């Protein structure tokens, strides 16, 4: 029996899926624009930093969840990836607090 090498069957484009991708793009775009506006209108301080961090996490949520498709994976896989980031957040917080303490030790009165 002769086997013919056939190409794979092409599924047609799912319009809704493509629409969703561009919607996420618009959200990421707008979040970055908002960051820009804040960068030049709000004075430096805890509020500005907090808003920036929240917007960054907001963007990360869409990139990881939709672009990397993690929101639609099994719960076990989602937690395997998301849970260890708790350590990352603590690492950043600990180092920043420590940096502040060193600043106080050198320059604090």
């Amino acid at each position, binding site marked *: 029996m002769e086997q013919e090498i056939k190409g794979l069957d092409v599924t047609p484009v799912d319009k809704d899926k493509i629409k969703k991708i561009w919607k996420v793009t618009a959200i990421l775009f707008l979040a970055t624009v908002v960051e820009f506006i804040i960068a030049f209108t709000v004075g430096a301080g805890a509020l500005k930093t907090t808003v920036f961090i929240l917007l960054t996490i907001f963007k990360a949520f869409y990139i990881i969840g939709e672009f990397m498709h993690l929101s639609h994976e099994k719960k076990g896989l989602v937690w*395997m990836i998301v849970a260890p980031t708790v350590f990352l957040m603590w*690492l950043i917080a600990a180092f920043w607090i420590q940096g502040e303490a060193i600043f106080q030790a050198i320059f604090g009165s």
Partner: protein
Amino acid sequence: MAGTAVVVDSNENLWNGGTEPLKASYGKLMMWFFLLSDAFTFTSLLATYGFIRFAHPAFEGEIENFVFSQEYWPIPEMVFNAVPFLHGIHLPLVFVGIMTFILILSSVTMVLAVDAGHRNDKVAVEKWMLWTILGGLTFLGCQAWEWMHFIHGTEAGGQLLDGSFFHGANLSLNQYGPPNFAALFFFITGFHGFHVFSGVVINFIIFYQATTGVLERRGTYEMVEKVGLYWHFVDLVWVFVFTFFYLV
């Protein structure tokens, strides 16, 4: 015992092998775990940035009066304010903003390539992979310009203790502020840039395999999805670098 019915408890047998309990292939899982470990590396770099940044005094006073000094940490928007072909015009963060949009857009074309891969649409995979590669190369070009400008410095330059002037920054001298600021700039954006570079190379290999029909003969375009994960991660890291290095 012939005739004994075997009850298959799907939950109990889920982890005994032969199935994919997480509904993701081995390669995809390993890519996720690699990305998680890579996230730890990038986090340590950003943690170090915060540690050194907060151990330095910040600039006190109005932003209009800001001048470069070794005494305090520079304000990023005063350092990164140049755009190619617009020499001498103060355009804070405009160029780095353009770079951000280029990388986000190349991430979008990657999603479209992955979607095309799911549909086994060879032509669409080729098209979107090529756009993604172009986006990556454009970003790298922009970063090369950004580095060049940072290294060459401004016309005013900085002054050494013996009164002589120098321009720009390297790992030991920095006209913009404390030397560590330049060191962290080179390390963090350099490490990210190297990821972009390797991402472009990997994307090109998959583009080549798609074009020559290797993936078609394999019967699945899942490799596009795996390199897509890596490419999105590179974009994700840039989102964090953009916030913590340029905005905060």
